[in-house]
């Protein structure tokens, strides 16, 4: 049990997927201008990343590795993720319309979110067991949400500050992300 807690903490804080592994930066900058969109995106990522992590682990272990087809990993993972996103979208629309309305446009965007694909590939490269893959997928997703929501909070206040013209918008966003990344950098000594 202790191992899983260490794994979870290292995935959420130390190897934070956005700020230490540099994955998923397009939605990080794109959806962080408002708190509302940041929360929507984080929820959608938690939802899809856990399912994608589990399914790609099963596909890799029981299909690709069994038949020596590892070179098809890239193409099969992206197909799994794309069809999963499509399926989740249809399922939510039919059965949980309230959640569907909340996640809205963020669901289709997740197909091209490299945090999802990246976390799935890390699970395979690190040779995690099924439970480890489940824990790490969930923790990566929580770390994504944590960083995104923190960043959105900071960014909402930057609007009020007087920023020099060439630094405005994305540029100051990146510098802010750098400072946020520096604070997460401090967790490095924890485990």
């Amino acid at each position, binding site marked *: 049990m202790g191992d899983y807690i260490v794994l979870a903490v290292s995935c959420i804080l130390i190897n934070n997927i956005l*700020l*230490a*592994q*540099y*994955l*998923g*930066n*397009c939605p990080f*900058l794109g959806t962080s201008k408002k708190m509302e969109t940041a929360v929507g995106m984080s929820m959608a990522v938690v939802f899809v990343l856990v399912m994608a992590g589990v399914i790609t682990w099963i596909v890799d272990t029981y299909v690709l590795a069994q038949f020596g087809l590892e*070179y*098809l*990993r*890239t*193409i099969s*993972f*992206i*197909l799994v993720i*794309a069809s999963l996103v499509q399926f989740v979208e249809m399922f939510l629309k039919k059965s949980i319309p309230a959640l569907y309305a909340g996640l809205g446009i963020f669901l289709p965007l997740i*197909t*091209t*979110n*490299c945090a999802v*694909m*990246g976390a799935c*590939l*890390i699970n395979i*490269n690190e040779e995690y067991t099924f439970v480890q893959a489940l824990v790490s997928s969930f923790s990566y997703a929580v770390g994504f949400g944590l960083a995104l929501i923190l960043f959105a909070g900071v960014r909402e206040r930057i609007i009020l500050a007087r920023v020099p*013209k*060439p*630094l*405005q918008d*994305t*540029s*100051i*966003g*990146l*510098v802010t*992300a*750098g*400072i946020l*990344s*520096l604070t997460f*950098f401090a967790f490095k000594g924890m485990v």
Partner: protein
Amino acid sequence: MAKSIAQEFAKGLWEEIPPFRLVLGLCPVLAVTKTVENGIGMGLATTFVLIGSNLFVSLLRNSIPAKVRIACFIIIIATFVTVVELLMQAYAYPLFLKLGIFIPLIVVNCIVLGRAEAFAFKNGVVASLADGLGMGIGFTVSLGALGGVREFFGSGTLTFWEKPAFEIANYAPSFQPFGFMVEAPGAFVCLGLMLCLMNLVGSE
């Protein structure tokens, strides 16, 4: 369609240079630019995929139904990424190890999908090839430049093909490498400041 082929090519080099003007595909930009060499290697791999996917998307644009176009684009792109992966394992193995999971992640690089959707699906084969080549070269130059700045300050060297071509320590023995630059926070700050510089130069 008034633009000439040369203009389609040239817009990728300055007007719409990725990742500065089109803020897309940031993950590899931040992750692999610890050295010039990695940056350029990643840029070239992306260029190959970009040209291949633009070519095939524009060739097949009349037979792909609009409703399932994204799925078709992703399959075309994933095929080219697999080709690059296998080629790099065969001919550039050390670089392949350094770039790690960012090679398979070209599949989800928004620049490649973005150009397929915004350009290749609507334009002819030659224009799409020119667009892919221009965007690819622009991306490679940006990655190389960012990698150069980070490596120069972060480790005090510039490395090409495994050999250090330039070392600050030879000229200034008391130089201390600025380790912040090669770590994650440095990547964000450095890219932000370079974007600021581009805005400053471009606004005149």
